[in-house]
């Protein structure tokens, strides 16, 4: 397909240029249409959050349910936020989530980057066996391991009901090792050999040569793992049970049963928890998207 395409563009360059010109003229008209399409899609993706925000700001004078629906509060109030913050220690949950997600993100980068180096750049007995075993663990649904992990947390590690229970089992994922192995493999061997000739040890090579080169991949792994850990729900909900010891998603689920049908408060709770991760995402978006895309190069 590629060669056929190449052969054909060799001659009628003028044709292409003419068509492109026509395209640009037309695009002035059609770009307006494209913006309508783009905005319509944005409405679909963002609308549920907008509705949450509006509901959370509705004051006592505004109905949460009416026909037709009332979108903009006429009597805006922060009362729902006050109720949520009075009922649940949201700042503590935020801090708990932050401790867990930062630890899990940082430790994953370290442990996965260590494991990825020999798998990418060394020859040793059992390498392929280890690599395929790692790949196999990618398939195993994490939920499958929760019963034994629960037993371990209570009987062996004694970290049930502490934040450590969310950190230790998630210290490394095979996915991250796989991703960083791919990144390391793109580093030229000559670079490593030259360092060896100069007498650098493997740890030195790993730290001073490989890690700086694959920094974008490390950032992607860190961000990806951070967001996954921040939003993790099932395992944290099994481990955490003290009112002050929850993470945000677990606290949010508790909020649902706490406020039952007080939708203003539930909406306020959702808004409070979504805003920080969205702000974080906006700041790191570039690296995150680049890393996510780089993970599946064709």
């Amino acid at each position, binding site marked *: 397909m590629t060669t056929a395409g190449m052969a054909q563009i060799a001659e009628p360059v003028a044709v292409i240029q003419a068509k492109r010109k026509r395209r640009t003229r037309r695009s002035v008209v059609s770009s307006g249409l494209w913006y309508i399409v783009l905005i319509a899609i944005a409405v679909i*993706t963002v609308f549920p959050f907008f509705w949450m925000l509006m509901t959370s700001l509705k004051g006592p004078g505004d109905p949460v349910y009416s026909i037709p629906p009332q979108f903009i509060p006429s009597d805006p109030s922060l009362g729902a936020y006050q109720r949520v913050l009075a009922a649940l220690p949201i700042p503590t949950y935020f801090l708990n989530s932050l401790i867990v997600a930062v630890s899990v993100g940082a430790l994953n980068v370290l442990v996965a980057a260590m494991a990825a180096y020999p798998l990418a750049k060394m020859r040793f007995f059992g390498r392929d066996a280890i690599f395929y075993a790692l790949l196999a663990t990618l398939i195993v649904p994490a939920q499958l391991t929760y*019963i034994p992990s629960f037993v*371990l947390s209570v009987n062996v590690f004694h970290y049930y009901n502490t934040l450590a229970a969310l950190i230790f089992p998630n210290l490394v994922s095979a996915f991250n090792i796989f991703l960083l192995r791919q990144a390391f493999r793109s580093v030229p061997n000559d670079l490593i050999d030259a360092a060896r000739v100069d007498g650098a040890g493997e740890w030195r090579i790993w730290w001073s040569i490989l890690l700086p080169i694959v920094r974008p991949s490390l950032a992607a792994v860190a961000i990806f793992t951070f967001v996954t850990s921040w939003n993790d729900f099932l395992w944290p909900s099994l481990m955490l049970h003290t009112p002050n010891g929850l993470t945000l998603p677990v606290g949010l*689920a508790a909020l649902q049963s706490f406020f039952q049908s007080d939708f203003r408060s539930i909406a306020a709770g*959702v808004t409070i928890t979504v805003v920080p991760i969205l702000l974080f*995402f906006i700041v790191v*978006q570039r690296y995150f998207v680049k890393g996510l895309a780089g993970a599946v190069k*064709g």
Partner: protein
Amino acid sequence: MTRKRSITPYTFLLPALVVLGIFVVYPIIAVIYYSFTDYDIATPPVWVGLDNYAKLLGDETFRLALVHSFVYLLVTPILIFLSIVLAIVVNRRMRGIHIFRALYFVPAVSGSIAIGLAWKWLFDRNGLINSVLQSWGVITVPIQWLATPSLVLPIAMLLTTWAGVGFYSVIFLAGLQNIPEELYDAALIDGCTNFQKHRYVSIPGLRPQIVFVAVISSLAALKVFDEIYVLTNRTGGILDSGVTMVFYLWKEAFQLSNAGYASAIAIALLAITLVFSVFNVRILESRDEGAT
């Protein structure tokens, strides 16, 4: 390439292997053992042989969970289609396109509990959807969306799709940007319409991404839990209408303290995932030009 026999490679690998050994390999072995026992986590397991598996075969809820999990896989082709369309839509140079791409990603980073609650509020009896439909005169009495057994699963699947499209389209967008411009020029000369251009250039060019997203999203569909948990208020829905494999596993293990029976469910889930993935992983690996 180092060829010398040394322990260095193993020291690099040690922390990862220890963690995965304790939290992945050991649990798989343990869960196989538990599946042959009567176990409530609090007291030691008692060997019961194949009793759990025998019970599984006659269990109507398990059968339902199995069906629901397979139905949930329908999300995968829909997600792939919509994500490719979205990637094509945002793959153009326009003022502010980055803002739109970021907006489409919002559901993917917000967390399943938050978006689950947002959707629950839309589909509530007193929610926006009923309110809009009533004001348009489409319905006269509010619909109990999430209390209607036949609607629970479709709404959860819609939620999964809505949350996933932005995420997966980023992968497809990167794939599209790797396709050489010349191929599109050639298509233009051959007189392809816009649709044909994507059908014969974009789709074949995206093959690796399609395989990747198919694997990732179908594995995710097989272990869906959070959406069901939130939308059904942790009940699994009226008449178990929203119960999936993982939800049933969770309910048996951690709500009803039947960890032995739940382990048998886990083994069934593992068997299905394995059969499903062996094929998929082969395709993935064939792209990975053999290690040196």
